């Protein structure tokens, strides 16, 4: 049985200030007219719907990113953090963040000892770690990232977290 205090801690850990800040004032919000790659992320669970835009240059470097749509605080904050982080990255690096985040949030323990390294690599994304206590919200935290993955793989179907 969780005490009331614990309950509060977990919620505060989920809705960290960085998350609330990105949810309220999402960065890079809007269309990207000269996007080369786009993808939609739909979470049927709560009706989150994000459209992600990327401009990926010839050398597979992400030179710009934007997003549109609506969603819960977690999915919007995650999308906003994503755009902040991937601009300037090679697509391979971006995809590494994607796998690291999914691995980390789904609660899967890496089998080797790269644990600490993963943590460091996640950087600001660690603000999303609060969702680990909220399994039904993991999908929100990873939605934009699944869409990024789809966009890079150029899948035509909207990405869903199902």
């Amino acid at each position, binding site marked *: *049985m*969780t*005490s*009331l205090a*614990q*309950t*509060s801690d*977990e*919620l*505060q850990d*989920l*809705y960290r*200030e960085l998350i*609330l800040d990105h949810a309220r004032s999402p960065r890079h919000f809007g269309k990207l007219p000269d996007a080369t790659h786009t993808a939609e992320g739909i979470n049927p*669970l*709560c*009706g*989150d*719907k994000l459209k992600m835009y990327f401009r990926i240059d010839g050398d597979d470097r992400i030179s710009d990113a934007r997003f549109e749509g*609506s*969603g*819960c*605080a*977690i999915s919007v904050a995650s999308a906003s953090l994503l755009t902040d982080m991937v601009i300037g990255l090679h697509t391979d690096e971006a995809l590494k963040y994607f796998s690291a985040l999914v691995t980390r949030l789904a609660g899967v323990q890496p089998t080797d000892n790269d644990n600490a390294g993963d943590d460091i690599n996640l950087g600001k994304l660690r603000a999303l770690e609060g969702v680990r206590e*909220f399994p*039904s*919200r993991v999908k*929100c935290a990873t939605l934009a990232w699944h869409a990024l993955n789809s966009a890079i793989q150029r899948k035509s179907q909207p990405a869903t977290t199902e």
Partner: protein
Amino acid sequence: MSHIRLTDAEDNIVDIANCRADFPALTQNVNGHPLVYLDSAASSQQPAIVIDTIAEYQRHDHANVHRGVHTLSHRATEAYEGARDRIRAFVNAASRREVVYTSGTTESINLVAQSFCRPTLKRGDKILITHLEHHSNIVPWQLVCEQTGAELLVAAIDQRGQVELDTLIAQLDENVKMLAMAHVSNALGTVLPVPDIIREARSRGIPVLLDGAQAVPHMPVDVQSLDCDFYAFSGHKMFGPTGMGILYGKEAHLEKMPPYQGGGDMILEVRFDGTTYNDLPYKFEAGTPNISGAVGLGAAVDYLQSLGMDRIAEYESELLAYLTGQLQTVDGIRLIGTAKQKASVQSFLLDDIHPHDLGTILDRQGVAVRTGHHCAMPVMDFYGIAGTARASLALYNNRQDVDALVDSLGRAKEIFSR
């Protein structure tokens, strides 16, 4: 069952509220708090008598139905068909031939779309639904329209979430081959004025299907006095099992309709050069049915009858008024769905907190509400919102549940105002 039957009206509330103890799921703690279950519109909890009846059936009486001469098969058939008789009485169908077991409201509606409408529907024909329907009363009609070239018409709703009666009636022309609408809206709680609408449809010879998924658990339903052509509902929303539903249909319609699925039990004779279908209702029940589901739904119906649907309706209506009143005291709340006639459901938004975040915060305090589009995306589009938080009531809820909800909304405001 642990509740005690009392007779005078004052004690009604006490009596119904005592039912809570009949529901094992409601006695647990969730996230360290006593569970406050306000999600019955999505799926209701089962009283112990339903859970136990199913388990006992499986422990003693299970076998395949209808075609067996041995004792267990006979017992299973009696239990299965006995449940049908009680369900017939519960909704006052004229005959057991009119009570078709399905896997749920969704299948019931698909069955009507495919077997009643599809064979005759053609370009120029119309199907009329309303703007507040559940996806299960939209998509089957979209599919059959696509298959036949017919057109899907939608009757408008107003800001309170009520169907615009005059507009709807004006849409009832001779090309409308089916009017399909909710009896009670799951997203908004609106009770539709179905007797008035059915009268208008009837005078124009238009058949009417009612989606009763949200009505049957909360009020007395009499399909004969409603005079609808079809009535669809689900076991799992009326304290019975999942995978179990009912299609009521007027015998004259069902007689004429081709079968929906082919298989065992729905035939009298199978020859490779032609097959004779079984009598009603079996013509529509292909394959081994959900026997334990029927047995469980029978037990749920007995349970509801023992309390009395009138008394349940009265109790819930008082509780809904309390819920709505208490929600209105919360600063920053916006109620979605404020029809004059309502049942069991209140959707709302709080400040600019996304319903999904609200749901998580409430859940941490043991309060279970549903958040999102409630399978009614067109309703959300109508209000220009992505979703709502929805508190839905059933006979086992009480004022303390409402109070817990309101308290936990306060906590949500706290967290989001940091």
